[in-house]
């Protein structure tokens, strides 16, 4: 008697988290956003959250399109406003797991004020920032993270303004979890996102990404692979360094790792404690 042997086509474990009918995506060949999204989904799968209770909120820009591809409740908001939208969403329904997934221009330039204030409040959200050093969606202009000397479409002679260093910014503003990886570090990236998702409070993961079409080709990174090889060769892992050591320059070594993992009360916990005490005092 023969036994029928099924030979199923293996299903990619990330597919169930994606709106597959929306694929192919809009990102360029060689872009790092897909790598970051892949790591996020694998972390989410491993975290074991009920997918119905996970929301992704994005702003505007290339990374802002992540919200459109995840098969979760997802919100594509106005430019820079993903974090305050997420704040409203979280406060209205604290049982939701809220992930803000957006780019450096969206989160740190036009949304920079919201970024530092949500960190200060220790708002209970996870922020994943894909930093590709430029405004890619609009054609590669310089932004808040563009390194000095890098060329962009609006810095044709090289950028001359000092960039933000995002982990330092997040840490000083009050985040409780801060990590940085490049698109080369897929396993570490996934692990950090998993830790960030499980962390109570404002957790932040920066993902340094190549942008071959708009940033790379202007800065001698011929294609995505060339830039990723550069990440591989020039990244130095330092866990819990002193903040001044979290270097990120133009053609200098890039410090990556988990930089911060501390505890302090979240906005919601602090608010609920205070309200509870007042209600007890007033006997309500």
């Amino acid at each position, binding site marked *: 008697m023969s036994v029928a042997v099924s030979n199923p086509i293996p299903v990619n474990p990330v597919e169930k988290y994606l*709106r597959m009918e*929306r694929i192919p995506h809009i990102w360029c060949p060689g872009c790092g956003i897909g790598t970051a999204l892949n790591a996020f989904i694998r972390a989410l799968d491993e975290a074991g959250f009920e*997918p*119905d*209770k996970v*929301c992704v*909120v994005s702003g505007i820009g290339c990374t802002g399109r992540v*919200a*459109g591809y995840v*098969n*979760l*409740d*997802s*919100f*594509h*908001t*106005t430019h*820079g*406003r993903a*974090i*305050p*939208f*997420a*704040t*409203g*969403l*979280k*406060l*209205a*329904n604290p*049982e*939701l797991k809220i992930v803000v997934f957006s780019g450096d221009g969206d989160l740190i330039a036009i949304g920079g*004020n*919201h970024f530092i*204030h949500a960190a200060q409040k220790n708002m209970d959200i996870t922020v994943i920032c894909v930093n590709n050093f430029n405004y890619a969606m609009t054609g590669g202009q310089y932004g808040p993270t563009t390194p000095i000397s890098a060329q962009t479409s609006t810095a044709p002679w090289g950028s001359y303004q000092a960039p933000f260093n995002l982990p330092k910014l997040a840490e000083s503003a009050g985040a409780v979890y801060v990590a940085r990886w490049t698109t080369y570090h897929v396993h570490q990236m996934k692990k950090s996102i998993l830790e960030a998702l499980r962390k109570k409070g404002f957790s932040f993961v920066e993902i340094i990404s190549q942008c071959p079409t708009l940033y790379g080709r202007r800065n001698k990174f011929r294609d995505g692979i060339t830039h990723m090889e550069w990440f591989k060769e020039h990244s130095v892992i330092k866990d819990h360094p002193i903040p001044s050591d979290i270097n990120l320059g133009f053609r200098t070594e890039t410090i990556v790792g988990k930089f911060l993992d501390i505890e302090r009360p979240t906005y919601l916990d602090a*608010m609920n404690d205070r*309200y509870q005490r*007042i*209600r007890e005092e*007033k006997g*309500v």
Partner: protein
Amino acid sequence: MKPDPKTVLTGTHFLKGNDAVCEGAISAGCNFVAGYPITPSTDIIERISKRFPFTGGTFIQMEDELSSSIAVSGAVWGGAKAMTVTSGPGFSLMMENIGYAAMTETPCVFVDVQRGGPSTGLPTLPGQADMMQARWGSHGDYQIIALCPESPQECYDLTIKAFNLSEEYRVPVLLMTDECVGHMSERVVIPPADEIELSPRRYTTLPPSEFHLFRPGKDLVPDMIKAGDGYHVHVSGLTHDEHGRPVITPECQDALVRRLVNKIRQNEPKIRMVEEDIPDDSDVILVSYGISSRIVFLVRELARKEGIKAGIIRPIVVWPFPEEVFRKAAKKSRPFVVVEMNMGQIVYEVERCAAGQAKTYLVPHAGGTVHNPEDILKIIREAVK
């Protein structure tokens, strides 16, 4: 649907307009307010922050009006009934996210306690010069609803109305008060909870497999869901199809924008609230809204003493504009005298509806205080000459 009686301050009170807005919001079931302090609206969030721990609401003071206005949309998609509160300079910043709320059909309430402008202008003194900004301030084509209370009692009543309309039409509703109405204290009667009618959110009864987030009903308004209910929706400020998927084509744009505009225009007769008193023998029709109408009612008595009989139209819902009311009134060719605390905004709507059948006069005022009755009388005398 009725409010929770524990939250409603039933009784007769002596309240400021701003306090009445706060109580109206709580009676309407508002349980999320994000705001940023700005004169002359700040006392609304002060009272909200004091009351909310006992009504089950969440108040958050944000870093600016950009974040306040988008946090409101976030909270609504999380299931809350949400409001933000501001004045001129903050209202300018909120335009971005009024557009987002209109585009994503997010039911929410914006309160603008109007002060003199432009720019920082007159922080502590009244104005009515944000009326066109309320209608057109965010980029692109869309339609909102705007209400203009003339007293603390109306601040209470119309705040509830604003929440109800926002739920019925899935649209941001703007409550356009001003510094005078906000800071005047008058008798406000708050009814028992069981006499307050609230419009529930239009949550779908369809299962996720059959539900489309932007598929409209007969009234052109789609039903909605809240995050966490398992529908896995996508909400975007990009032009989107009935599923919520971004579709960047002229066809999709046409279908969406026409519906966003028509769901309000088509339902204007149902949304309409106008106080109208035009005796047959009227010589002139006085048009005003909000605080200016308080002066106009006085002026009507003064005019009568001079032998001039004046009718009155007071739009309470200013947007969508009650065109039919003005077209009808214009047929007898009696002149309109429009009294508003700006250099001419709603007068253009009146003139448009009069369509040459009746003359239209404006009594302009740059703001800072209410009209002097004599200034209005002068124009009335000229109009009836």
